[in-house]
């Protein structure tokens, strides 16, 4: 076989089906006229095409009409259309599902409780879980908090007055009766004012100003600390200077009381 024969032989079927350009077709014809093996190749292709083009359609064994009910794809029809392997696999899966379903149904438990029905598969039920914690009673908590704060305030007040009285007792030698009486009256008055102040503060807190309450009490606490410090300083000075005159003492005490009252406001 010549080297060019391979190219021409590839062109033979295209030439027979009129798929070659005119120049290539002519070149092929020239080659086939000279090359006997390639001409034989074309004869074989011609014979093949002749046999393929032999008419003879078979008659249909039946008509293939379509009916509306046939067009509905039922699960069974879809299953039948699957290959044998898929049908086997699906059957195995279906059997497994059925077995699991049967096992689950064998352990089915339906229990009616107060206000509810419980359906359970599998093991017998455990005791019912504890009920959820009750919701927080905000009003009650607020009330309790107020009581605690009020109690703390009262204790602080008592403590402060006790401290003042102790300081007065220490400086008893330097004060006259008149001065002590005036001081006691002033302290009682201050106590009364503190009570009314606490009650008023509690009222404010009850009105819903919890934040303000905390600030107010903190401020009150600071104020009291500062007042006590000031009183202590003054009393210390009084004790150190026993020769202070009574009118000076009155003035000092009056000033202290004024300061305390002013701060409380």
């Amino acid at each position, binding site marked *: 076989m010549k080297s060019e024969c391979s190219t021409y032989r590839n062109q033979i079927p295209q030439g027979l089906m009129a798929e070659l350009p005119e120049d290539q077709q002519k070149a092929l014809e020239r080659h086939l006229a000279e090359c006997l093996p390639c001409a034989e190749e074309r004869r074989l292709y011609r014979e093949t095409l002749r046999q393929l083009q032999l008419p003879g*359609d078979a008659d*249909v064994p039946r008509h293939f009409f*379509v009916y*509306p009910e046939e067009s509905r794809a039922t699960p069974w029809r879809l299953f039948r259309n699957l290959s044998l392997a898929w049908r086997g696999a699906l059957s195995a899966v279906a059997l497994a599902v059925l077995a699991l379903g049967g096992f689950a149904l064998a352990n089915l438990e339906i229990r009616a409780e107060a206000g509810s029905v419980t359906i359970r598969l599998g093991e017998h039920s455990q005791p019912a879980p504890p009920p959820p914690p009750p919701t927080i009673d905000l009003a009650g908590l607020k009330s309790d908090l107020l009581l605690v704060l009020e109690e703390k305030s009262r204790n602080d007040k008592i403590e402060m007055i006790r401290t003042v009285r102790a300081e007065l007792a220490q400086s008893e030698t330097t004060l006259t009766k008149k001065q002590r009486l005036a001081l006691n009256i002033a302290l009682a008055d201050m106590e009364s004012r503190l009570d009314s102040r606490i009650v008023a503060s509690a009222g404010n807190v009850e009105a819903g100003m919890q934040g303000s309450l905390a600030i107010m009490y903190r401020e009150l606490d600071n104020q009291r600390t500062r007042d006590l410090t000031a009183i202590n300083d003054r009393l210390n000075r009084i004790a150190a200077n026993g020769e202070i005159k009574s009118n000076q003492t009155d003035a000092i005490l009056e000033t202290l009381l004024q300061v305390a009252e002013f701060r409380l406001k």
Partner: protein
Amino acid sequence: MQESIETVLSKTSTVAADSKDKTQESAWIAAAQKGDTLAFNRLVLKWEKAIYNLNLRMLHDCEEAAEATQEVFLSAYKSIRRFRRESRFSTWMYRIAVNQCISRLRRRPQGAHYSLDATGPSSSVVHQLPRSESHEGEILREETRRRVRLALEHLPPEQRAVVELKFFQDLTFEEIASVIQTPLSTVKSRLYSGLEILKVRLGRTALEM
């Protein structure tokens, strides 16, 4: 060469018949798309022979070919509303049929051999063919068909589909490309490769005869 009056009249009447046929088919398609089953079954009546024979040559099994043909028409009936007339109805039907056949061939176990000749006489194609005036000539033609069927069995499904559409359904390369939704060059390549195989088998047996 000038054509005779009879030839011209014959061609004219053929063209007119084709036009009428296409108009009628178009009306049936439109009616079927609106759910008219009777109109669809008229289309079945028109195309069942071509589709059945395509399936028969592709599958080489009378019963499976009949089953596949029924599936093809059912599938077409279900999806005819989606037929947009972008191609001919025949192209659309061939596409469904070829896909059905290729799908069935791929599902077959490797190495399985199906032969019409192996089936019983009741299902043999020989018994379904039209009677010929010459018994001897008919026997020779049937022998050739048998050899063609045997040779086709050696082609892969995709090549077999191209050969079937080209030589038995007489489609152009462009129409085949549209049916099997493959590039034109691939269609030609598959056809020539298939012909190469068929030449070896059919050409050799022709020499032996």
